[in-house]
């Protein structure tokens, strides 16, 4: 296929947290609010002059200093962020919206405070409490946390308008991004898609890490380009796979997988498009904040949700996405040392295989996976096994 016009530009944007568009927004008076987790509704960080930056630590090398602080048995994503923070890579931020959802990520936010990584006068680190299940009172609690521990803090620190009207305005912009990403996602259902998993991963990531207002023109243009893009005559992939699991902000992971002959058709992981890129439909007769919070809770696929219906939802979503996107198999992955996905992966990879009949590859991985020879071998073996299964069923080779 012909290269996408902005792909290299997008790749470059992902080389730094403090990328060109972030710098531009800051120069225009914007306030960069960092966050890492889906539990913080992204749209609430885009009120008034604020813009959200989902934090990554691209080009991570050594994480020795963070390992001294956090030991070597903890999430590499959290450690990579601490390392990057100590290096000064997040000095551009004006605030950090934390969630106390998983202990290791929580400690990243806390190290930000303890080690005084950002000493701007109004800089804040806020910690919000997250529910484990959906009940009337937990929804109320979530709304309260977002109001008191997030919106009020933003307002008190910078005088930003956090009113209902401001939130609704942010939702409009957010929805446009989501519609574009969703339309691109749908293209992956085709037999011979006009977009690869890697390209989609890159585009989705820039939508999380760049100011919405500034990335939107590029996204619109890319969508138009995709509509007329001609796929290769012979599909380059040998098997279609759906990915389910914990945080992946490294497009190198998808690239490695696709180099092994797979096509990633579905991305049900943190930083992926499910959940995260769903359009938020707001009613006029209820405060926007309440509607957003409830919707985020409903859509969340985080393994931290303990209630039975959410456990079932996660399994159903994985199964549904794999079917809708016509995957040949599912890859259950987890960031090494992630407790939530460690338990979830071990159990559900069995359930998906034994009850739902999906071929499943179950892996744990380091933060920077692209250099992993071990992963490459496992991906190759999985793709091969999927290919053999299809041949045995009489499909194309």
């Amino acid at each position, binding site marked *: 296929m012909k290269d996408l016009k902005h792909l290299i530009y997008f790749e470059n944007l992902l080389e730094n947290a403090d990328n060109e568009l972030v710098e531009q927004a800051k120069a225009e008076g914007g306030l960069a609010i960092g966050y890492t987790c889906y539990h913080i509704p992204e749209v609430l960080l885009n009120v008034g002059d604020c813009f959200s930056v989902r934090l990554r630590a691209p080009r991570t090398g050594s994480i020795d200093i963070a390992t001294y602080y956090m030991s070597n*048995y903890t999430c590499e994503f959290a450690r990579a962020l601490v390392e990057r923070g100590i290096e000064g890579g997040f000095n551009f931020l004006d605030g950090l919206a934390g969630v106390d959802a998983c202990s290791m990520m929580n400690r990243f936010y806390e190290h930000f405070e303890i080690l005084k990584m950002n000493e701007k006068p109004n800089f804040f680190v806020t910690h919000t409490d997250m529910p484990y299940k959906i*009940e009337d009172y937990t929804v109320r*609690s979530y709304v309260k946390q977002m109001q008191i521990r997030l919106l009020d803090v933003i307002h008190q620190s910078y005088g930003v308008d956090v009113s209902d009207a401001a939130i609704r305005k942010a939702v409009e912009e957010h929805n446009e991004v989501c519609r574009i990403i969703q339309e691109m996602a749908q293209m992956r259902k085709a037999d011979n898609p006009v977009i690869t998993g890697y390209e989609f991963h890159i585009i989705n990531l820039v939508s999380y890490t760049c100011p919405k207002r500034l990335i939107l023109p590029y996204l619109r243009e890319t969508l138009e380009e995709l509509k007329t893009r001609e796929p290769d005559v012979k599909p380059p992939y040998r098997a279609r796979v759906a990915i389910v699991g914990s945080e992946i902000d490294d497009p190198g992971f998808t690239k490695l997988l696709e180099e092994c002959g797979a096509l990633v058709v579905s991305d049900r992981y943190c930083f992926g498009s499910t959940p995260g890129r769903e359009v938020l439909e707001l009613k006029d007769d209820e405060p926007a904040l309440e509607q957003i919070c409830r919707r985020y809770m409903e859509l969340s696929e985080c393994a931290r949700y*303990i209630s039975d219906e959410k456990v079932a939802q996660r399994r159903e979503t994985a199964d549904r996405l794999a079917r809708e996107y016509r995957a040949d198999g599912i890859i259950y992955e987890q960031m090494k040392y992630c*407790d939530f996905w*460690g*338990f*979830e992966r*071990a159990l559900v990879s069995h359930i998906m295989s034994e009850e739902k009949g999906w071929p499943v590859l179950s892996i744990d991985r380091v933060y920077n996976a692209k250099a992993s020879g071990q992963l490459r071998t496992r991906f190759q073996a999985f793709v091969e096994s999927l290919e053999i299964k299809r041949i045995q069923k009489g499909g194309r080779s």
Partner: protein
Amino acid sequence: MADIMNAIGRTLDLANDLPPIHMPDVKLPKVDLPKVKLPKVDLPKVELPKAETVKKKIAGISLPKFEKKVKYPNPAFFKAKDNMDWKAQGENLKEVGGIILQLFKECDWKEFVLRQKNGIAADFARIKSECGAFAAMTPEERKDIFLHGEKQLGKLYRSGCMATVRREWRGAKDTAYDFYEWLHMWGMLLGTFSKDLVPALNATFHYRWMISYMCCVGFMDKNTLGQKGSALRMSHLMIYDIFRYVAENLVFLAKCDAKNGNSAELNKKVVLFDEMTMGQIMAGFPDLLGIPYQLMPVFLVSEIDQLTCVPYIDAVESFGLPADTCPVPSSECGALVLDALPHMGACFISSSMPCDGSVMASSYMARRFPDLPVFHLTFPVRYEYEETVADAAEDIKACIRFVEEKTGAKWNWDAYFRNMKRFNEETKYELEKWEVNKTPYPQIIGPAYELFRKWNYEMDGGSDPRVPKTFRKVDKIMKQAYERREEAWRGKMKYRGIVWSCPAHYYANFSNWIANCWGVDILVEMESLNFTKPLETEDKELALQDLARLYERMVMRRHTNGGYRNVVDELWRQCEAWNVELIIMYQNVACKNMSTLQGILDEQARDKGYHMIWIEHDLMDPRTVSRKSMRAKVNEYMRTVMKAEPVDPSLVEFDDENAM
């Protein structure tokens, strides 16, 4: 009699029917009575006692209590009818018999006989050496040994053995007392199990963890090693209560288990709790039986027998669970994978506490027992945010409704308040222990106390009316010992220490070793320092909020959740309050909440000038870090940094790899 009553009744009825009678007004004449002078009488002077004296006397009078004495646990629970499937038991026994036969056949009998011979020879050599050493002593030394006990406790261990070579000689009086308590414990165990012996015995043919409980008395010995006098007495009192609770619950587990007693009658009343979830909520359901489900099969037994959880951990890791997860939920999930947990209960209260691993274990439970109704008790992690308290109380209300719905029982506020008053009283006694230990003459230290505090706070929680008596007895002994300025570890009071983070289950008596070997006295440990505010016992809404606060501050969670200040700043505050110089900083290699703060803790300890000994362990898996390796960390630090000499050099190096 009935006829008379009827006649009276009829007369009264007749009287009511009679017409009113009007009496005529009659005026009576005035009568003047003669005046009489009474003689003077001199009364003897009586001196009234002073008000203070009266008050004291009144306080001294013990009025009879008319409160109805409630038997605990409810005897009906023991008497509930069992429905054992004898055919299935027969098949199981056949299978067990087959395994034993196979073991018998495959046993290397030559090697076995050789080992026995070596064991006997080693015993003879030991006896000879001990007799020789005793003979070589001066009369004063002999007298000292006779009265105050032996000094080299390391000699009690032998390489490869599961138990010590003999019981400890603590001096004539304390050995006699210790032996009495040993008998007392066995008596209680036999008495409790005999309340329904068959299912309990049968459980040993189904669950390997039941076998480990056979050595629970050895666990008692391990926890009291080196203790004498008041310290020994207090330890025995406390450990007795714990084992009574364990024995009773083991009987209940066996009675309820579908594979054993299969008592439908009892199962209707049983509410199961997730690991480490506190039991106080059951105080409002006096007719139900709350059982911490994994406590006996996994959690506690791993403290008694260091190797119990190894097969569970291996099973779940083979299943696919990463090896870096906390061994508590891992072992529990492993036990589920191997079907090593009883099938029982009317419902299950799962919980998000204390950490991320615990949250996830509940999905394994649901997988094993899909028909068991589950309520997920989930409290805010940022528990110090006041705006979250009302929501936490809502969760408790929802949990109460769930239990009512699944069991048909009704929440009883009177019962709840009664138990919480008892719990408040127990907490008051606990605080007094802390006050004594903060002085230069700490009295109540050692693993038995550490275990008792956690058990009382988490599991008992004021429900057992027998426990306050133990508190009172211990309080009395402690205060008397304090008045006499006794040494809790006679001749071994060299350093004041605090334990931070979670201790290794497989080395529950580590604080005992460190006191006996190096004279480091652990005055308190992190897991004991929890919620001590008296719980509300009048207002219902406030009571639920207090209960939520209590649950949020459960063991471990109080410190590892809600922000780093609860574990980092809190450590320095406690070090100051207890006047400690040495911190035993455990590092459970799989505890993410603690290990993510290791650098900060290390840096700040250096800045503040505390001695901090980092001791890695893997909580329930001694293969990762052995007991010996844990001791080596202390030995190294004490020798190289503290330049100290061991109090008992025989305990510096010894082999207990196979010991329970």
